[in-house]
């Protein structure tokens, strides 16, 4: 990610789908449908990743080296055909950087009266 030299934060927001996928994988490896399920649960159904967005993002994230497909089955009870993905170190860093970026924005918003409950 291109970082701002002054603050060491990513300059651009991460794509929403990327962020949700990385977040879903933060707790451990999952397959595509599992990612969709946990994103849906976590957001209370507000974010639904349809297959093309899901797998398109998974491919982009793999290309970027932020996630990695696991060889072999992580959970033998589960569907054999599904591939599992986990965060790479770069993915974890990118996620942390994105969260920090969002935290900055939140801090800035708190500093103003934007969130004072008006």
């Amino acid at each position, binding site marked *: 990610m291109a970082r701002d030299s002054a603050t060491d934060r990513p300059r651009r927001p991460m794509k929403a789908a990327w962020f949700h996928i990385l977040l879903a994988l933060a707790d451990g490896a999952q397959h595509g449908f599992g990612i969709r399920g946990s994103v849906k649960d976590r957001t209370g159904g507000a974010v639904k990743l349809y*297959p093309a967005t899901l797998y398109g993002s998974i491919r982009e994230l793999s290309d970027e080296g932020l996630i990695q497909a696991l060889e072999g089955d992580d959970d033998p009870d589960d569907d054999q055909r599904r591939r599992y993905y986990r965060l790479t170190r770069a993915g974890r860093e990118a996620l942390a950087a994105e969260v920090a970026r969002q935290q900055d924005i939140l801090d800035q918003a708190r500093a103003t009266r934007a969130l004072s409950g008006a």
Partner: protein
Amino acid sequence: MSACIRLALASYACLLRLTPRSYRADFGNESMSDLREILLEAERFAGQTVVGTALRAHLDLMYQLPGTWWAELRPEPAGSGRGAGAPPGIRERTMNFMNELRLAARSLAKRPGFTLVAVLTLALGIGANVAIFSIVNAVLLRPLPFEDSDRLVQIRHHAPGLDLPELENSEALLGYYQRRAPFLEGVAGWGRGSSNLAGADQAIRVNVVAGQPALFELLRTQPFMGRPFNADDVTPDQEDGSDVVALSWNTWRSDFGADPSVLGRVIELDGRSVEVVAVMPEGFGFPDEDVDLYRALYLDPDGDFGTFGIRGLARLAPDVSVAAAQLRIDEMVAGIPDRFERITTEFLETAGFSASVETLRDSLVVDVESALWIILGTVAFVLLIACANVANLFLVRAESRQKEMAVRAAMGAGRRAVATTFLSESLLLGIGGGVVGVLIAGAGMDALLRIADLPRASEISLDAASLAVAGILSVVAGLAFGALPMARYAGTRFAAVLRDNGREVDEDAIATMTAEKTEKVQAAFGGSILNIEAIRMPGRGRIEVTGQLGDVMRESAQAALSFVRANCAEFDVDPKLFRRSDIHLHFPEGATPKDGPSAGVAIATCLVSLFTGRPVRHDLAMTGEVTLKGKVLEVGGVKEKLLAAQRAGIRTVLVPKDNLKDLEDVPEEVRRALDVIGCEEVETNICEALLDTVVANDLDDVEQAAPARAARGGERARARE
């Protein structure tokens, strides 16, 4: 699993086929089984419709399509584990894109003939479509400019038994419906004519619609100023029309100078004094905007049954469909004999008397509807044909640019770069065609409307929808024929970009290894001089073969290389060299297509020379096909080749041994001038052709050698075809 889900899955699978193959292979199965789960889940829970969910999944896939191709086509996808490289920023991408467009524009400007033809062809296609679409949109698709216009119907009567298939309404029938048809919110009779108007700025002829006072109410129209007609405006003694009129907006503006005090003014209509009581709002026109004046009309509800000719407008009561109204009005027609003494059931049956209810829109446009759709379909085909033609031109042009593409490839352009070049050029052409097309549409539509008498003509214009259609058509057309050469070239490696274009030099080919007298021999009978140039540079064992070659020649180059690599020990070549260097074989005079196998031995010799540094004898020529095992095979046209070699001043010619029998056909003086040697193995050729001295170069240290120095180590040889 319901049929609905199966259908959605099938169509999703079809759509999935549009994604790149690699994406499908990686994610196709999982996508399908996910979608199945999602749809089943949607089916189980209320509040989510299967159709809606399936639709969203489809849209999602369409939205992601370009992304999947982008990941496919970009030159070097950052491999996993290589760290996170951010995608180029939006500004960067825009800059790149603008740059591509500028390059494309320049390249198109260099071929004004091609560009002009392509743009004009597209412009005609797009222009025709935009014009016809504008008409179809205005006439057929847009609702009539009245509130709830789909509730407005027209009532007509028919009496085919009396040879009167189309009757309008009579006063008595209108009165009948007005009093006894609860399924109609209201009925108003109206008619159209023209009158002489005096009392305005000048005397003019005006189009007049005379209607019962309820007409404006049915249309849900309030005057711009003044009052609507009311029942008191009309009295039974006004047979020719009442004394009050409403002006249309346009008439008020043009003939009354938009006079705000026009209300109450008395004007003369066909010699009768009438009072202006209202001005209708801008854009209002019933049945169209050509009407200048509206006049209140008195109709006697107990009038004559048999005098038809009054048009009937009605508004359906809420929740009554057109079909239901038709049924009810049929019942009323059957009940006519009970209401009208002089009309008997027998008479109605003889006359085949019936009433019809159709929407106002249908009654206005039904005559032209199917014709317009057919025309739209036709011009759509015209556009397809135009696109096909331009695609054809584009392909031909792409073929003729192989050299340019080869140069770009040699300079490191990837598949995506070439694709972008084609796409931006075709996009520019498409947009150019669109712009000119809109101009053509604008001009053509005026002419068309003057000739054709279309309903709702005043509503037709090049509006935002038309421009949007023009935009979409241009981009889609542009992308479509740009994708053709892309599909052809971007899917293969670069060597294949330089595919032959089908024309072959005749088989009278001879490979020589001399360097001089190119021009002279080229003019000689039987083919053209062909340099075989080979250079070696630090790399990874790739071979590039360029120079307008046919597949046969390309393959023979591959075979020669494989042979040399397989036998490198024999030629004192370090096998590691192949791995550490890239080879570029080039056959100059790139504009001349070349094909055939007979340069095989020459290529092999050239490669050995390249890797050993042993120079080639300059007074020696050779021809012959080489097999993977190094056998030299017979070729055709040896006589002509020998003649040409002699003319080129060659001393020694190496021919396949099996071709020695052809020497009988060669003239004596040529045979005397040449030393013809028959070869069976390519080693013979190599031994004969290469000098024993080694030219000093950095052969053993390719990786450290700067490209320029590596180029100096390149060996030049030439072959004649």
